[in-house]
């Protein structure tokens, strides 16, 4: 018996060590990515970089319009994508086994597999060509197409996690089914859905391809949805493919700004959700 016990202990420690090593290995790409962006981008950060508009080569410019444009277009995309994605997800979770919802789910999966450059082409054909100009509206439309499928699928998953006993408790109190869906099921799944919406926002803020030939870019301040608009990702892309060293540095700094914005958004929403859903065990 003592021999068996000690051999089990050895195996236990060995397995723990292997798992720990794997965790470290998994952290390598994340940490090195963060380190690279911070080390190359931090030098170019200043207050001016956040608030100024891009300047010609050789002058100190900023990404102010790009930050505003990213928020503006992602915000517009959210107005469409969050109601649509969350609504579709709730519908799929509540009526998931009938033929029509099964088709919807299949199409959602297909849509989420469509490369984002193709989404950009579609938005170009649907909005840019008829309007005869690049516009923030077309950019937001393309972003919303990217955001809806993952939002619908993760909303469905979170709604399915709500115990059926809670739904029954509400129905048994004489609460109609639609109010039960809205005020019990959706309310209980809200923390998860908020996280899903946040991931969708982060995904939208990080997309370049759908914006390249829809919103294009803009060197100037603009809040007009029918005009081209700057975004951090396209700005990074333009600077990165330029031949100038100083623009490369600005691309790194803009990448760091993008990472920080997405990170802050993530953190903020997590804290907000945790505070409000404090009772969640």
């Amino acid at each position, binding site marked *: 018996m003592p021999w068996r016990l000690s051999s089990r202990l050895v195996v236990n420690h060995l397995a723990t060590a292997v798992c720990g090593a794997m965790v470290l290995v998994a952290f390598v790409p994340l940490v090195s990515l963060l380190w690279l962006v911070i080390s190359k981008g931090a030098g170019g950060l200043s207050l001016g970089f956040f608030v100024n508009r891009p300047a010609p080569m050789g002058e100190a410019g900023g990404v102010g319009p790009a930050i505003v444009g990213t928020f503006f277009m992602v915000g517009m995309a959210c107005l469409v994508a969050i109601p649509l994605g969350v609504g579709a997800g709730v519908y799929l979770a509540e009526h998931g086994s009938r033929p029509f919802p099964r088709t919807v789910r299949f199409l959602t999966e297909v849509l989420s597999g469509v490369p984002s450059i193709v989404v950009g082409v579609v938005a170009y054909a649907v909005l840019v060509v008829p309007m005869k100009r690049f516009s923030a509206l077309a950019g937001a439309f393309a972003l919303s197409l990217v955001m809806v499928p993952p939002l619908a699928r993760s909303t469905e998953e979170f709604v399915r996690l709500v115990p059926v006993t809670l739904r029954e408790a509400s129905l048994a*109190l004489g609460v109609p089914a639609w109010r039960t869906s809205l005020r019990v099921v959706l309310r209980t799944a809200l923390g998860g859905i908020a996280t899903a919406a946040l991931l969708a926002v982060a995904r939208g803020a990080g997309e370049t391809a759908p914006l390249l030939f829809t919103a294009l870019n803009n060197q100037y301040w603009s809040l007009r949805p029918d005009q081209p608009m700057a975004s951090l990702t396209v700005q990074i892309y333009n600077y990165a493919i330029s031949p100038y060293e100083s623009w490369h540095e600005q691309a790194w700094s803009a990448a760091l700004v993008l990472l920080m914005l997405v990170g802050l958004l993530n953190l903020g929403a997590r804290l907000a959700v945790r505070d409000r859903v404090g009772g969640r065990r």
Partner: protein
Amino acid sequence: MNDAGSRSPRTKLNVEHLQAWYGTNHALKDVSLAIPERSVYAIIGPSGCGKSTFIRCLNRMHELLPGARTEGRLVIDGEDLMKVNPVQLRRRVGMVFQRPNPFPTMSIADNVLAGMKLNGVGVDDAESRIEKALAQAALWDEVKDRLGASPMSLSGGQQQRLCIARALAVEPEVLLMDEPASALDPIATSRIEDLIHDLKQNYTIVIVTHNMQQAGRTSDFTAFFYLGELVEAGPTAQIFESPREQRTEDYVTGKFG
């Protein structure tokens, strides 16, 4: 234990020729039962005999399951509830489930008022309603200082009494209880049983139980179900001491089940 045999109270809920199916599975076969007002009616029988299906038909929760279907009449005070909107019916026939299921996102106080709040109905006398319902459920003294806390901070037995308070706050006429103590420890169980005894002063109670002693302790009447049929029903003492049917006797004496 009970004095049900000596008086003949008014019938509150009359179940007539009730049938229920899950898809093609005929789960309840032509059940008729008269449930007297302000009494406790226990539904007993082995697992799968249809007793849970039976009480889930009484507030028409059964028909919500995919492929489920019911037939028959459900008469309260002369009105056939199979013909009214099930949402209206469920405000008159409340239910307490096997496992405590308070709403985890609401406070204790909001859980009590959930029947009104979820329906978007304003509550003028919120505080007195909360106190009354919690007092009826014998929980007021334990939670009066933390009404704003999460229900998940309560013990299982307290959570179940909160669920009873939640059902009572809607002021139903009939209270259905589906094995309300099966997930609780013996002390919490005996508190729920005491509570059932108090509640029958004002409510008509139908309780499903696996536990024969519990049926004996709490109920005035007992119905024995087997394989989807109502085998025998009557005053609890008669069912336990001198059943007419052999199957009932075998079950209550523990020969099978």
